[in-house]
């Protein structure tokens, strides 16, 4: 029997069980099961490990409960920026993108870099233009922002504002 396998993660963080309700837990488990199936189906049909990891990560990038593409954390400016990388263990070819916006599937852009670019890592507008040149789907900024991440960002802004007001802080 031919051997194949896939494993995935959706992030690791230090949190208490009380911080996650049953509904959220269920969303995580369902999202993980969906992504696992997406990758497993590729392998079961004889597909490559490269296509399988892309399919699994695409599923997680579309799912707003995971911090990648849709559902991403917000930068200090309140914007979303993505990083992604993919590597082929056979050829040692790699494709990576950094600080890109608007690209619906950053891992698919990384894979096109692996397949079509002489470089390993493209960042910012160069990577976005490479996505355009290869007809990858782009999305408006609001597609990526979830209420939950917006709230986390607002909390951070308030935290920073309080720190600024404390005596001895930078502001005069």
């Amino acid at each position: 029997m031919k051997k194949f396998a896939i494993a995935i993660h959706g992030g690791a963080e230090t949190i208490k069980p009380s911080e996650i309700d049953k509904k959220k837990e269920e969303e995580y488990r369902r999202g993980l099961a969906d992504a696992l199936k997406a990758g497993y189906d590729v392998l079961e049909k004889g597909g490559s490990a490269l296509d399988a990891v892309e399919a699994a990560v695409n599923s997680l990038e579309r799912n707003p409960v995971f911090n990648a593409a849709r559902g991403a954390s917000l930068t200090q400016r309140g914007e979303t920026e993505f990083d992604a990388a993919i590597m082929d263990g056979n050829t040692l070819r790699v494709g990576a993108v950094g600080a890109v916006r608007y690209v619906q599937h950053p891992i698919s852009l990384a894979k096109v870099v692996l397949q079509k670019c002489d470089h390993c890592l493209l960042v910012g507008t160069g990577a976005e233009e490479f996505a355009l040149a290869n007809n990858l789907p782009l999305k408006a900024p609001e597609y990526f922002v979830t209420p939950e991440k917006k709230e986390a960002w607002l909390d951070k802004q308030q935290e920073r504002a309080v720190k600024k007001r404390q005596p001895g802080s930078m502001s005069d």
Partner: protein
Amino acid sequence: TVGAVALDMNGNLAAATSTGGLTDQLKGRVGDSPIIGGGTFANNEACAVSCTGEGEAIMRGVLAHEVYAMMKYAGNSLQAATDKAIELHADKLQGDRGILSMDNTGKVAFGFNTGFMKRGYQAADEEPFVALWE
């Protein structure tokens, strides 16, 4: 951050990592995910690795490549190499870490110092495994 590692029917490994970064990070900050050898690495000779957690510590520890090197050059098993990479330089490099790795026989290892890692695994003709806390 999300990631995947896989072994296909031809015995090839691959790794992929994608992330939305850290809340409140500076514009232009790039984390470990796209740094080859930091958050993502794959080589058929040993393993495929995808990391998650405090990106700066993972980059400075070059953790994905460390898992590979501890297997290839020091003869560690996949799980031992993964566990060691989680603890590596813990005195100098603080922060959450999660490592997902798979060797060229399809074995998987999860290492994390957070008590919570969203993860899943499925081998050929086996039932899927999904876990969070356990």
